[in-house]
């Protein structure tokens, strides 16, 4: 029997299916009520308008139901705000393996509109350029490698 935590942590992100919601850092807590056994899951969105949130809630309920917790509650919190710094090391490695350049660490202090070099996830070259600041999902930008010419997604630092 898997624990509620294990069941929820293994739910894949619906838009970036190579990593789990735990690795993405949007799973904040899984609590089991000591008396009733009722499970409460707390998640936070990557972006406020993330259209995948409803599907993520449904996937969490389904995973918990399969693990023997059919009446779980899923709460959504906005504070503290999600940061790409919460993506785990294993998550970053899986993103890169799937051709998605992982985000650079978020710098503290005032935000300077500055473009950092992003390594091509296919050939490793730092000779890359941004095609579009906004990509296929809210959390990604579209880049291109000048060495191997391949376009690729880059998860934006937030």
């Amino acid at each position, binding site marked *: 029997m898997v624990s509620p935590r294990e069941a929820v942590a293994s739910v894949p992100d619906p838009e970036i299916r190579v990593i789990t919601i735990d690795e993405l850092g949007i799973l904040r807590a899984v609590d089991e009520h000591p008396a009733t056994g009722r499970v409460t899951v707390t998640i936070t969105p990557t972006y406020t308008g993330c259209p995948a949130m409803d599907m993520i809630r449904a996937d969490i309920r389904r995973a918990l139901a399969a693990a023997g917790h059919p009446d779980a509650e899923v709460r959504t919190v906005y*504070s503290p705000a999600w940061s790409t710094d919460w993506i785990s090391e294993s998550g970053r490695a899986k993103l890169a393996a799937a051709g998605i350049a992982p985000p650079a660490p978020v710098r503290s202090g005032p935000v300077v*509109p500055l473009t950092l070099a992003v390594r091509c996830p296919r050939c490793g070259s730092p000779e890359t350029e941004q095609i*579009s600041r906004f990509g296929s999902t809210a959390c990604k930008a579209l880049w291109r490698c000048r060495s191997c010419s391949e376009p690729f997604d880059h998860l934006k630092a937030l």
Partner: protein
Amino acid sequence: MNGPFDFALALGDDALIAAQRLGEWTTRAPEMEEDVALANVALDQLGAARLLLTYAGELEAAGRDEDALAYLRDDREFRNCLLVELPNGDFAVTVAKLFFLSAYQLPLYAALAGCADERLAAIGAKARKESTYHLDHASLWVRRLGDGTAESHRRMQAAVDQVWPYVHELFAPFPGAPVDPTTLRAAFDAAVDPVLAEATLARPADGWAPAGGRDGLHTEHLSYLLTEMQVLHRAHPGAKW
């Protein structure tokens, strides 16, 4: 006008109407990447609108949720600033609108993040990160068009001149609000002035300052926008995908 309810409603309406206008560009933007970009910015605005309107509904405690507030109010009940309801115009006008709106929303959300109201502080902390990208993106286009060809310069200057009068309403006093909008003007100027200068654009002189949006007095453009935005919900109450 007073208190957190009116403020949450005003900010939520700003974001909602901005999202609706930006969404009109979908499939019509000048290049495919820009189509995706404007849709993404619209999605961020819609996300902020949902949080703010949901919270406004809870503060009002009259049983109205985000859908009731978005789809079942008439123009006089909307509290958005006039800037967001203006038609998109050509691409330069849309860029000017997004540039000024995000240069206002970024310091606004940053200030909100530090306010005493916990819910508004959480929303501000979340939305400010997204506003940073919006301002960056709009600034890029202002520079590119302003310092581009003679024609793009002419259009960008015309757009800045056209939208500028509507900026002043954003910084009008808001009695009872957790953040005093008059304190945001300095940050707005600090974001806008260097970009205009680099774009070889003249900062318009302050003069005519239309207002009224925060009191429910709108341009005629809002009614047409609401008609399109609300028709499905009004025709099929409670419809779900």
